[in-house]
């Protein structure tokens, strides 16, 4: 075996993944994240560092150009896979790894690449007054549709001066065509949608789903706040809940995570005053659920999630039917599901106002603390498109 083949094999023993989730792909993303964690396959932040492009979820024409751009940006050796269903993830990862380790396939891929990347049309920086009255360069930077720990598909068009957001405008995600727009395509809100459609759903099942959804949001926020260890713990708990772990197995870990996140008040101090949203403002904007109840900044919303999860974990074994009158039945992970539009639409609508004037780091934390669900946004887009 020659040296290149050996190196390829060694590199493919720990491939680095670029996970791109399409609207409706949440269960596939969860399966990919779980496999990656258990196999020790790092999840890369950018194509520069990744060798394996993982497209998770149903095909989605709206995000396809962005996927192709990232694929074009990915240096070889590389491989890609498209998993449409959680059950096929493990096998697809194995197959893609084999392609990554194959010298023949990698040589063919390198030979088939265009010699030079087509130049992107980069807008030149223009100038304008900044918040201190200085005349500074303005940069147009889109956030999304794909970023690490970002609601996949959401696009925010920012005007930056330095790293201060001067303007923010919301775009996308594009609506999902076909059956993905139904209850099955909205994984986190599914128990409430099914109950509303008259199917039998237990309180325990819905509480389990809601706690997992909020741990998923929490993990993104913690990762962005620079606490990767706590983010991993939140993801492990999320996976345990979705794998039907019994209440005694998760309750102490939830309490421990709560203590760790709030310890010494560092997160509180580092996020104080970011993205302040009072209950009155939230309700006026049509927001319900934890973001409205938190009545405060990024940290208040983070703590509200932790408290919701702690409450839901006590109800995992409740066998009563899900009923709009009880506290679990009233709202899904992001708020009431009974309105004309999913709750994430109102959350996303708040972003341009809350982001203006913040720094990029703060903007990312604000988005993560509201965490609109891309599946809900895409479904709303589809509903709107139908009307």
């Amino acid at each position, binding site marked *: 075996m020659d040296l290149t083949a050996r190196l390829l094999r060694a590199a493919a023993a*720990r491939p680095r993944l670029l996970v791109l989730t399409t609207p409706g792909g949440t269960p596939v993303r969860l399966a990919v994240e779980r496999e990656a964690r258990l196999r020790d396959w790092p999840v890369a932040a950018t194509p*520069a560092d990744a060798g394996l492009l993982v497209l998770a979820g149903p095909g989605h024409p709206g995000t396809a150009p962005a996927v192709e751009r990232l694929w074009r940006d990915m240096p070889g050796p590389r491989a890609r896979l498209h998993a449409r269903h959680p059950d096929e993830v493990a096998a697809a990862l194995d197959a893609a790894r084999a392609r990554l380790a194959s010298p023949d396939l990698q040589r063919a891929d390198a030979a088939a690449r265009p010699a030079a990347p087509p130049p992107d049309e980069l807008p030149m920086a223009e100038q304008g007054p900044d918040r201190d009255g200085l005349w500074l360069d303005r940069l147009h930077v889109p956030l999304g549709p794909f970023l690490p720990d970002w609601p996949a598909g959401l696009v925010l068009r920012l005007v930056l001066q330095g790293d201060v957001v001067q303007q923010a405008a919301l775009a996308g995600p594009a609506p999902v065509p076909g059956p993905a727009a139904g209850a099955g395509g909205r994984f986190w809100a599914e128990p409430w949608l099914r109950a509303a459609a008259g199917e039998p759903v237990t309180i325990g099942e819905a509480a389990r789903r809601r706690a997992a959804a909020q741990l998923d949001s929490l993990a993104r926020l913690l990762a962005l706040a*620079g606490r990767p260890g706590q983010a991993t713990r939140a993801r492990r708990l999320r996976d345990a809940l979705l794998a039907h772990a019994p209440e005694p197995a998760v309750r102490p870990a939830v309490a421990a995570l709560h203590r760790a996140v709030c310890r010494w008040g560092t997160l509180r101090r580092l996020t104080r005053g970011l993205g302040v949203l009072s209950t009155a403002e939230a309700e006026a904007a049509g927001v319900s659920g934890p973001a409205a109840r938190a009545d405060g900044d990024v940290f208040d919303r983070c703590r509200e999630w932790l408290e919701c999860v702690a409450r839901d974990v006590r109800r995992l074994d409740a066998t009563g039917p899900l009923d709009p009158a009880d506290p679990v039945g009233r709202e899904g992970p992001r708020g009431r599901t009974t309105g004309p539009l999913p709750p994430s639409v109102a959350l996303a609508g708040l972003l341009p106002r809350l982001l203006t004037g913040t720094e990029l780091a703060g903007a990312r934390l604000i988005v993560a603390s509201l965490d609109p669900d891309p599946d809900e946004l895409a479904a709303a887009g589809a509903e709107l498109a139908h009307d």
Partner: protein
Amino acid sequence: MTDPMTGPVAGRAAQPVAEAGAWWAVPAAPALLLGLAVLTVAAGAVLDARDAGRAVTPRTALRPLLDVAHALVRQPRRLPASDRLLWRLGVVTVPVSAVLAVLVVPFGGHAVADPSVGLVWFNAMEVLTWAGLWLAGWGPNAALSLVGGYRFLAQGLAYELPLMFALISAATGAGSLRTGAIVAAQQDLWFAVWMPVAFAVHLLGVLAFSFTGPFAYPTGRDLAGGVLGEVGGADRLLLRAGRRLWLAAGAAMAVPLFLGGGAGPGLPAWAWSLVKTLLVLAVLVAAERRLPVLRADRWVEFAWVVLLPLSVVQALVPALVVL
């Protein structure tokens, strides 16, 4: 308890204990530094595996080294309108300056060189990483990477002055900028004991110039990796290696500056140096995992309002005792 007065007075009288210039020290110092850096990577991998709920085996510790193979087979990446020369220069500067910095660090009784301005040399190499990281952020012509580079500068403005005062405290205590003389001045009492603030600030400084743990802001996940976001292959390997090499270099420097160098009972000097360096590294690895990333805008305020006055007062203590 030793009288703190005897420390600096004895130090001024003592001769430098480090023996400089042995030929084998030239390859040994970088090799030792690399070994220590790999050790921090292995420790991180084991702790990561425990966090993620994976079984911890001997292979666990070595798996991150597979990234070296990944870096070697990687095709070069071409970006439109990137500044390749400055980009590459910045990337190379970070690990090279770390290796150059340890040339003046005495290990046991030996150092590659013991110039009269050893401490200034170490500090100058550390300041080179400012240029290196900023260029690495500037080079790819990408917004998030550039923001990452600027973040390091903002962070640098906050950590550099307290760090300089911490180094000056040790130099004042010994009445010399020669690292050998600083070790000799601690024969009776370690500087860490009567300059605890300077010691703590030095440890924070090490995390900061290694842009890791609470100071990983320039490579933040919110910037999709920031300075590291656009680099791939060998360039990425160099930057990541530079990060670990600097952590090891900072830990190695803490021993002669604050922990009495190779002094200790029973064991030979090199063994004491090794034990102390490993302990400092363990503290740093634990700290980088436990402390959350500090946002530069909030950290600058703390650094200037709390840390800087404290380290100035700390520098005054040896100045008053010695002069």
